[in-house]
């Protein structure tokens, strides 16, 4: 076997047709259900991840429309208070934990290996496991909601409201355990991306030549690794308080209620940047392509992203300004909250400079970028406003805050994401999205969004609190609320049109070539959609924009085996090739491991013994997962 292996055919020994056939056989995903469950192809998993996240976006959107329906008029009787509590909690939880973070990571799972010129993500089985965990966590939450036991304590589930005394039943437990699912999934992807970016870049792609989206995902992944454990610890403490009678959050027994808020926002604020930084990467990528010049201020953009990532951990307390903190603490966190506007400003100016000095071509993705810049600046400005304590004290927990964070999250992340979907759709599917439908949905969404959310600033000034299920007719809110609800219909129409565009283009879009936008990054160097092995030869990179610098023919590395899944491991800084490394085969064990873990985690909501007995099947599946293969480890 070993002899045979060492003597195995290398890629320079066969002709192109033979090469592609052999690689396709080695890297294939088997057809049928079993093959689908066992696949570890980052493109298939990334595609699933993206589609699932968009399904959750649609579900969360339906909930938003239900809320707008209820709030359209005073004293409406459409949704009762209990159901309304569940709906706004589900809306926030779904959007934050099941859409925003997963969709960004999903795009990275698909694109990062392609952009850095490798054949699969690092730890591909962990990647499969991550997707199944995410899916099962989402199902847990939504099945519970369908059974009238959806969480009803707000998406940040403050204690004591979510604690054992005031949150009867299993609702808050389901929320807390859903957190565990999604955070396990997110952490797994973050680790994969860090390793992929550091160790699997194409030869020659030194750190200063890494595409900006990849930089953004690298910083994001570090944020995930540092921030997510805080909320996992917090939600586990909450579950322990609720199920086994610990006292982490019980002041009478020495616990601390504010501890929850600190732990949650130590995660929760970086979370905003975990969602925003990938969008920064997408925008930087699209701006360069459509301005038809390399992005202005590459170094400044990278440093701004790193600075955002670091500062993100220094301002969580601005969510807690009304909890009665010492003045010095408030001042510090005001200053740090305002300081993060500096790297954001640098990014904005770099993009404007790129567009200014380039020859922009206003295709739909670039329209989204422009809408992003405008909307995000508005959201950023209200962010600076609420960073100041006296102002924040006035508008805390009002619709002003609702307006602010929808501006930064939808304007700052969803707009670039929709642009990115349009931009990379040809790479994902091999077909272009319709420009005409795209432009229509663009204007509907952007105009609808601003008409829906801008009036909420005013409602906030008029004192309308968040999370109320109705209001009295003599309050001065009903005119604007009706207006907001009507405009929300326009926003939804835009999203529906976007979905129609996706489905139609999938069937009968114009076939796209390998590189329809004339983009400079490596994912466009392979066919659309990419073959299972991504690249027939691993490319060798000589600059930041490889496809612009050598448009005719990319230099490639050769000498990789064809009979096993092999990719190049390179050095961290210079990306000097170091070894030929094997990439794991398909395996169904990650799926079984995810099922066993889900059974254990869901069981633990009902009895602590589930952790003990549930660990046994988890152990068994992990043994299956890591069972030695009997093949030589490396042929470096």
């Amino acid at each position: 076997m070993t002899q045979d292996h060492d003597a195995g055919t290398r890629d320079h020994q066969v002709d192109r047709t033979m090469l592609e056939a052999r690689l396709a056989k080695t890297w294939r995903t088997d057809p049928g259900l079993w093959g689908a469950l066992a696949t570890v192809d980052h493109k298939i998993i990334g595609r699933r991840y993206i589609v699932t996240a968009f399904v959750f976006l649609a579900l969360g959107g339906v909930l938003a429309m239900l809320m707008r329906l209820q709030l359209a008029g005073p004293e409406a009787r459409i949704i009762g208070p209990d159901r309304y509590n569940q709906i706004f909690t589900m809306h926030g939880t779904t959007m934050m934990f099941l859409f925003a973070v997963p969709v960004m990571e999903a795009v990275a799972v698909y694109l990062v290996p392609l952009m850095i010129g490798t054949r699969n993500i690092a730890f591909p089985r962990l990647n499969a496991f991550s997707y199944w965990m995410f899916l099962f966590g989402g199902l847990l939450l939504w099945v519970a909601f369908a059974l009238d036991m959806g969480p009803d304590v707000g998406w940040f589930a403050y204690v004591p409201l979510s604690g054992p005394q005031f949150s009867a039943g299993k609702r808050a437990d389901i929320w807390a355990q859903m957190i565990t699912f999604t955070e396990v999934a997110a952490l797994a992807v973050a680790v994969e991306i860090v390793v992929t970016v550091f160790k699997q870049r194409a030869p020659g792609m030194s750190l200063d030549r890494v595409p900006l989206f990849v930089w953004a995902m690298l910083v994001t992944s570090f944020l995930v690794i540092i921030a997510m454990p805080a909320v996992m610890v917090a939600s586990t403490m909450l579950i322990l308080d609720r199920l086994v009678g610990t006292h982490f959050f019980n002041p009478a027994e020495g616990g601390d209620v504010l501890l929850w808020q600190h732990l949650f926002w130590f995660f929760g604020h970086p979370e905003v940047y975990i969602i925003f930084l990938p969008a920064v990467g997408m925008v930087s990528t699209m701006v360069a392509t459509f301005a038809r010049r390399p992005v202005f201020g590459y170094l400044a953009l990278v440093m701004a992203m790193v600075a955002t990532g670091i500062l993100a951990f220094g301002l969580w307390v601005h969510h807690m300004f009304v909890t009665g903190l010492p003045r010095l603490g408030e001042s510090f966190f005001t200053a740090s909250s305002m300081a993060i506007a500096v790297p954001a400003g640098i990014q904005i100016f770099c993009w404007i400079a790129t567009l200014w000095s380039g020859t922009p071509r206003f295709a739909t993705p670039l329209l989204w970028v422009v809408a992003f810049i405008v909307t995000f600046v508005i959201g950023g400005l209200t962010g600076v406003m609420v960073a100041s304590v006296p102002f924040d004290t006035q508008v805390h927990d009002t619709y002003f805050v609702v307006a602010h964070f929808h501006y930064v999250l939808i304007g700052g992340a969803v707009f670039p994401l929709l642009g990115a979907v349009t931009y990379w759709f040809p790479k994902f599917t091999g077909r272009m999205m319709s420009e005409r439908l795209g432009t229509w949905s663009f204007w509907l969404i952007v105009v609808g969004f601003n008409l829906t959310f801008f009036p909420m600033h005013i409602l906030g000034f008029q004192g309308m609190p968040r999370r109320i299920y109705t209001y009295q007719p003599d309050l001065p809110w009903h005119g604007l609320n009706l207006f907001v609800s009507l405009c929300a219909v326009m926003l939804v129409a835009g999203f529906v049109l976007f979905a129609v565009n996706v489905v139609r283009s999938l069937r009968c879009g114009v076939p796209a070539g390998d590189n329809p936008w004339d983009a400079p990054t490596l994912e466009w160097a392979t066919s659309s959609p990419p073959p299972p092995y991504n690249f027939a030869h691993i490319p060798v990179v000589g600059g930041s924009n490889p496809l612009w610098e050598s448009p005719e023919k990319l230099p490639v590395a050769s000498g990789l085996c064809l009979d096993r899944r092999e990719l190049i491991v390179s050095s961290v800084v210079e990306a000097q090739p170091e070894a030929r490394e094997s990439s794991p085969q398909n395996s169904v064990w990650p799926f079984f491991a995810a099922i066993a873990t889900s059974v254990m985690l869901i069981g633990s909501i009902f009895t602590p013994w589930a952790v003990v007995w549930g660990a046994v099947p988890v152990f068994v599946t992990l043994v299956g997962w890591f069972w030695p293969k009997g093949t030589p480890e490396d042929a470096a």
Partner: protein
Amino acid sequence: MRRRAVSTGFAALVLVLAAGGCQREERQTRLDPPIAAALDGVALMPDRISGAPPAVYVALGKPYERNAFNLAEGKRLYGWFGCAACHGEGEGGKGPAFLDGWWAYGPSMVSIVSSIRDGRPHGMPPFRDKMTTEQIWQLAGYVQTIGAYSAKTAAPGRSDAKQRRPAENRAPAALLFDPGPTPLHPDQGPEP
């Protein structure tokens, strides 16, 4: 084909869970007045110990024993209406204990509802004019859990306060039962 199999399986799972799980989480913020009136019709035995619960209570699925929200509400009422002044946190005091598993009038819901609503001799005041029917049933459900013989699937959580006894959701109070009956104070309990 595969998708259909998956969605059928999912739908079946939802149905199974729905059949088993939903009632314990349902929350009603306001009871229908006719149901409240019907719940008042408790048919006690002549000695006012035990009896038949109203038909509507059974038809509803015994919500005051099986629904976590109602039990938690009952626990709050226990504090708000000063039950602890005589019964402590279930260990008793001026009034009889609940935690010891000895029920002077039996552990049935109708007895407890009647005790709260109509009062009992030797000090238990009637709460008929102070609480709504729904509140009385909620409180009765909670009182019943304090001295329950077996664990229920629904229970209120522990309070954010000093813990003087294990939380209700940890185990049935039967673990804490005294081996013998607490001797009745001569002023307590039913007339012989």
